[in-house]
């Protein structure tokens, strides 16, 4: 066991932290007001190679490990969870193309995603048995596919150039498709205003008798395996974003508690505040270790589906608990937009409203 971070990881964290403070922090207010991302910021993120983290150098990426990606997302989310979500969606799509795409996809689409010249949206279906809209596919005209249905509230949908669509066949087979925005029958709706993650627009994706060529289906390996790799990348991205939000909430709570004076001394000396700080710290450290170990297992190609689910579940709960405690430490100020903690709470609520993309029945192989 060695819990010390390698120098490379520390340097990466510091670099991203400085970038986020210099470039992202000044943009957060505008993102909150408009719900949109300034193109200038996207260009800067691209110039830092942050869209291509999980992509090899050969395809224009920066070829980081899962652990490095986790730390990067954490540091971006510490300042702007919306920006980190935007990045994580792009990473997930790039991972799908990289692991399952054709040679042409890799040469034509992947570098565009990695360099942030084109953007992807995710239209992933809810786990089997979950009620709600879904997307179905079936073979038509020999080797083409026809897709029907809809997915609501897809990150990136209002602005994306590419759509990573998960479809379910009548036999419950699941397949991933990579579709350009110009696909006939694909309609990506306008942004749906949401509680949090403002700056990362999300909206519905509708497919009406969309006939797509066979090469748009990703992967020729068993579909579940394809989905699992993508789901794991997606879930790990979530963990990084949540950690960043919790870290920011913890720092804000500590900062306020040491400055705000009540009964003649800082409220950090009050036990009710101390309890909240200690509990936030416990949840943050525990969640961080769960996520880091999972990323470390992924980097070693070790089975870790159950660990991903466990980290995701734990962080879902602790993100809400932690950010709420930060709001409570701030008291009435916690509800004012002049202070950041209400945004952390809204972002946590928005992040944790989604199911873990890794299916429990996959994970239960580990149980």
């Amino acid at each position, binding site marked *: *066991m*060695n*819990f*010390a*971070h*390698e120098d490379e*990881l520390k340097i990466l964290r510091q670099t991203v932290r400085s970038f986020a403070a210099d470039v992202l922090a000044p943009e957060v207010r505008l993102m909150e007001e408009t719900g949109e991302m300034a193109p200038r910021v996207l260009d800067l993120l691209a110039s830092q190679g942050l869209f291509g983290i999980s992509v090899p150098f050969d395809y224009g990426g920066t070829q980081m490990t899962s*652990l490095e990606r986790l730390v990067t997302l954490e540091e971006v989310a510490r300042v702007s969870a919306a920006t980190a979500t935007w990045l994580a969606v792009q990473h997930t799509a790039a991972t799908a193309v990289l692991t399952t795409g054709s040679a042409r996809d890799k040469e034509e689409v992947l570098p565009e995603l990695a360099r942030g010249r084109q953007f992807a949206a995710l239209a992933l279906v809810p786990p089997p*048995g979950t009620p709600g809209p879904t997307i179905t596919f079936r073979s038509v005209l020999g080797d083409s596919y026809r897709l029907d249905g809809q997915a609501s509230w897809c990150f990136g949908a209002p602005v994306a150039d590419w759509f990573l669509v998960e479809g379910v066949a009548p036999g419950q087979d699941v397949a991933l498709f990579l579709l350009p925005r110009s696909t006939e029958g694909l309609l990506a709706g306008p942004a749906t205003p949401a509680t949090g993650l403002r700056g990362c627009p999300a909206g519905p994706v509708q497919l009406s008798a969309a006939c797509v060529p066979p090469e748009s289906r990703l992967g020729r390996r068993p579909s579940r395996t394809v989905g699992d790799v993508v789901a794991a990348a997606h879930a790990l991205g979530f963990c990084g974003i949540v950690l960043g939000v919790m870290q920011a909430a913890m*720092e804000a709570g*500590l*900062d306020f*508690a*040491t400055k705000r004076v009540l009964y003649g001394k800082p409220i*950090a000396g009050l*036990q009710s*505040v*101390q*309890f909240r*700080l*200690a*509990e936030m*710290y*416990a949840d943050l*450290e*525990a*969640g961080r*270790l*769960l996520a*880091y*170990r999972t990323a*470390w*297992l992924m980097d070693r190609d070790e089975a870790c589906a*159950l*660990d991903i*689910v*466990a*980290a995701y*579940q*734990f962080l879902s709960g602790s993100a809400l608990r932690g950010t709420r405690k930060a709001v409570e430490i701030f008291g009435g100020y916690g509800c004012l937009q002049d202070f950041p903690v209400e945004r952390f709470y809204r972002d946590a609520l928005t992040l944790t409203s989604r199911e873990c993309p890794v299916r*429990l*029945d996959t*994970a*239960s192989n580990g*149980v």
Partner: protein
Amino acid sequence: MHFTLTPAQQEFQRKAASFARQRIEPVIPVMEQTGRPPAELIAAMGEQGFMRVRLPGSDTPGMNHLEQILLLEALSRYSAAIGLLMVSQLMGIGTLMEFAGPAVREHYLPRLTTGEMLLALGITEPSGGSDPSAAGTRAERDGDCFVLTGRKVFITNSHWARLVLVVARTSADRRRGLSVFAVDATTPGFRTGRAEHKTGLVGCVTGELVFDQCRVPESHLIGEEGDGLAITIKAISEYGRMGNAGVALGLMQTVFEETQALAAAVGQLYQPMVQEGLAAIYGETQAARLLTYQAAWLLDTGARADAEVATTKFFANDASLRCIRRAMAIAGSRGLVAGHPLERCFRDAIPLISADGTGDIQRIVAARSLVGRFS
């Protein structure tokens, strides 16, 4: 950063697990009934080397902090009571190795590390244990002896210990007024009082130590006069709280495995809500385990880790209860029947919360340390 144990540690873990399965699991019903383990079990643990401690920075044989946790986790997989008994034993041995003079060290350490003798630590008093600086037990110098008078309560191993480390007041000074003494249980003026009947942890004894004009030679002063508070806090933090978390890890592992087995036995293992519950129990256990290993690793590097240790302690205790709550939902009545391991875990998790410092005290310790680092 890496998360693997060394081959030697993995081997040690296997050895401890197989010992626990062979020697502890079969005697659980007896322990639950009589309230005590068979005498030969303690000696056997000594024989296995389970009572040898290695201090940070030293290269003598024995277990460092991480390895102590691996041991406690393996023993507590079957019996948290044996786990807690061992926490006190290791806490005492580690403290003596670091602070005792040659007389105590040479006479008692060999007997303690072989399991010939058990040890108890007397800190908590009837007025409470959360503030050790308020200890009322007195030690008055008389020639080359100290005369001890007072009472300690809720002491693990109280009635079985043949050596007692006791904190007593040697002056009125709040910070430097306490000292630690090693008291042989045969010393005139020392006796045990009542033994408690506890909710759980039934296989280890918890009770009172009474000192009535008990004369202890000066050579049995541990550390210097006035060092008592610092020694006590170090012992509780680095061995007590850490060890308590190690016990909780073993308990949570039991909860996970037994819940899984129960669900499988009734064909419910693949029900989505069972799967979700098991994943949550796994997550809580793994989170507590990583926090504990990280704190142990920090201590082994020689670092101070007040916030990490305190956090580990309260998180592991609370996570145990959360796991049990999830397990109860899955197991239903089966898990509540006397004799079932889950039922025992429910009862054992409760007294762990106050042992070695309550959860509330841990939160205060952690928060103070965090605020100190932040400011």
